[in-house]
């Protein structure tokens, strides 16, 4: 499972509705609101899946910015094992 967190910026008057929309999406949790910013986590099987979810945020009406803060991918089964000396 890949766990990542983001700060989603919104138009000030639409923060609430953006939070509602995000909360409805699979693997997405809205943890808190700070002014027009939302603290969001995404949990998904792979980084690819996480990105697919997170990259969709920008098309939500009222979202003005999507900022990745943290991404943990230690359990991503799709990452290619590389022999390192």
């Amino acid at each position: 499972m890949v766990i990542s967190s983001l700060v989603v910026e919104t138009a000030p008057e639409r923060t609430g509705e953006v939070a509602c929309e995000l909360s409805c999406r699979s693997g997405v949790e809205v943890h808190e609101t700070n002014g027009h910013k939302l603290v969001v986590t995404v949990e998904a099987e792979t980084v690819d899946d996480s990105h697919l979810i997170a990259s969709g945020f920008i098309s939500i009406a009222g979202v003005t910015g999507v900022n990745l803060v943290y991404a943990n991918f230690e359990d991503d089964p799709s990452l290619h094992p590389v022999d390192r000396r």
Partner: protein
Amino acid sequence: MDITRRQFVKATAVALASAAAAGTLSSLVGCASGATQGDAQTEGRKYTAVCRFCGCGCGVICEVKDNRLVSVTGDPDNESNKGLNCVKGYYLAKILYGEDRLTVPLIRDDASTKGTAEGLREATWDEALELVSAKLKETWKADKSRLAFWLSGQQPITEGYACAKFIKAGLLSNNVDPNARLCMASAVVSFMNVFQTDEPAGSYADLDEADVFVTWGANMAEAHPMLYSRLTARKLSGEGVRHYDLGTITTRTSASADKTLIFKPNTDLAIANCIANHLVQNKLYDEAFVNDHLQFKQGAENIGNATMDDYEQTEAGKTAENVSAITFEEYAERLSPYTFEYVSELSGVAVEDLRELAEVFADPDAKVMSLWTMGVNQHNRGTWMNHNIYNIHLLSGKIARPGCGPFSLTGQPTACGTAREVGTFCHRLPADLLVANEQHRRFTEAVWDLPEGHLDAIKAPGMHTVKIFREMSKGNIDFLWSAHNNWAQSMPNLTRFLGMGEENKGIFDTFIVVNEVYPTLSTQYADVVLPVALWVEREGQFGNAERRSAVFEKAVDPPGEAKWDLWTFMEVARRVLDGERIGDKDAFDHLFGFIYDKDAADFKGDDRETNRALWEEYRIFSNPSLNERAQAINESAKLKMEAKQLAPYDEYLARHGLTWPVREVDGTWMPTKWRFSDGAQEDGFDEVGVATYGTPGLAGGVSFYKSTDMKPTVVFRPYEPPAEEPDEEYPFYLVTGRLLEHWHTGTMTRRVPELDRALPEALLNVSPEDCERIGVADGDMVRVRSRFGQFDIKVSTAGRTEPPVGIVFAPFFAEEALVNLAVQDTYCPLSKEPDYKKTCVSIEKI
């Protein structure tokens, strides 16, 4: 991941994002530098790094467990991004783990297989290095004008520095140029012409304070997302903050601008002159600023176009750089034809929009920030257009003050730090110094401890990028070594340079060495491929667009037999310079003995010690007091080398990056956010520089102490048309560019499946009106032809850009739709940077 670990990771994720939203992330992330923090069972080792995708230079913290990257966090202590990354940062780790990483050296025995995915066999390092060294030495000894190196704005600072030293002082060759020639050269030449020093006066901090943003030919929303995020944040937080977007096509950046001004190609030159004319004719310029700070010039005009190989031998080519002094009144006279009405007719922009934009610069209280990238730089008059933007900021005094300034954005993570600052251009030495300037050569000899006159052998500039590839295509280059770039996709006029036409087959006879991390189009033309470390697989440094130098630490080992690029250059250097002397000393040891043991075939210290030693030598260029001989030349020739002062290496590790000039004040190294601006150093102003070299108390509180007579130059540059204009045979302008998911040629981002899935193929954006006119629809395959070549691509009317009638857009990330096959290699006569934005093409359904 067990339940405890998962809970811990999720709690960490929430806490970090919460702190980022509140602006207190720094207290949570803390210092990295390889130390484990907290419980080693739950948390890996952390390392400071810098994102390697674009020119923003965002800081990240890498977490490593068992020699594998397991997480990335935005670095709150890096002032460039303050803990926030864009979507490309999401995938930083994944680029290390693509299935087809190159892990062993490869050799091509049969040159007839060039241009295919076949023909490369595995080899040992010894065999590959011996072959490369033998070919280089053979060419060097026979005719060194036939060797060339093509380096990069993605090459870390110390690596670029060492390469420049090897090539310039060791091989005594100037045939080295970086791929930054393709993106930043127009900005560089203009900076040098106007200010006599490279890189912006302001910093990213201006984004947080400007009242008005003007983007010129820059799709920041896609090409510089973190900086665009700061711009939009400022619009939300500031009252009445406005954004004007100027370009030849509508982009995602236009979508959020308050007003978009779409102009006809090249008329940006006229629009800037129109603004200047409005300021001057109506006495709306900053008179005190003009009187205190500016000098005026005009330059050669009607300079033609550098389309043909012999352009530089023509009269226009030989005189293109000429300038002569004029008075302010003469400058005003030159501007006078650029009325709103004339420029509106020329550009297609409404008079009222031009007037509104001009009034922005006329408002003495408005803090205005201009931002630009490739639309301005990749322009047959790119240097001129850079000049014209400076002109309006200088006339209005809107420069070098918080929230105010012309800011040239960069396209690669260290185009500034490496290509521009350490001198991997064919005409440069480190720290803005020029090979053609005798005092600059003497100073460089002092720092490198070379006999006086040693560098006189390289006083003539070498071949710039387009010339290198033109000469190669004609069979005049015997040896080419490239690193950190993918020239077989990013160069223009690939039909010629890849030998796809009936003539110009030189590429098949040139011995080509490519340092790479993945197979690319360039490796398909390589005789030897050297597999190298990627990003945090070794330690390095990037220097971004705001003059911030930052270190990325080594976090994991390279895969397989891949090696640090610098090691490959040292191994070849020791072989090629074997038996050579500098003065009475062994040449290799004299140049690199302080970091490299040639008998052991390895560095004397680890990554950290090697980088620190190189940095400390490089730092002498901007701290001449560290070297008695250099200091004497700095003083006698009034070089003012401290203008770009760098701090000791360990300061960058401790501080997560610093913007130069960095000044030591009471034992603390302090960065500078606003060059030439007087004020407290601790607040980011250039207190030490102004006090040392400048004149306090002048208009605007600034002193341009590096400029000749301390006065930057306003150079009148007229409107001149594109190199070619649409006609019956080629009725469209083709504009090329980048999109968010893929960077440049897609070498790394296209290994990320999701990024590739999000934007799997390059599409030709065509306006619905043009589609109807030429009888094509969404999804149709078309053949795009120019005077230079052709490519096939799918049409889209709903793409990421919205071109107006007569203009089409295609990105260049996809090697299967190799758009550069058809792009002109005509370059700006001053900067030698190609114009990728205005090739005339025909479009035919296939």
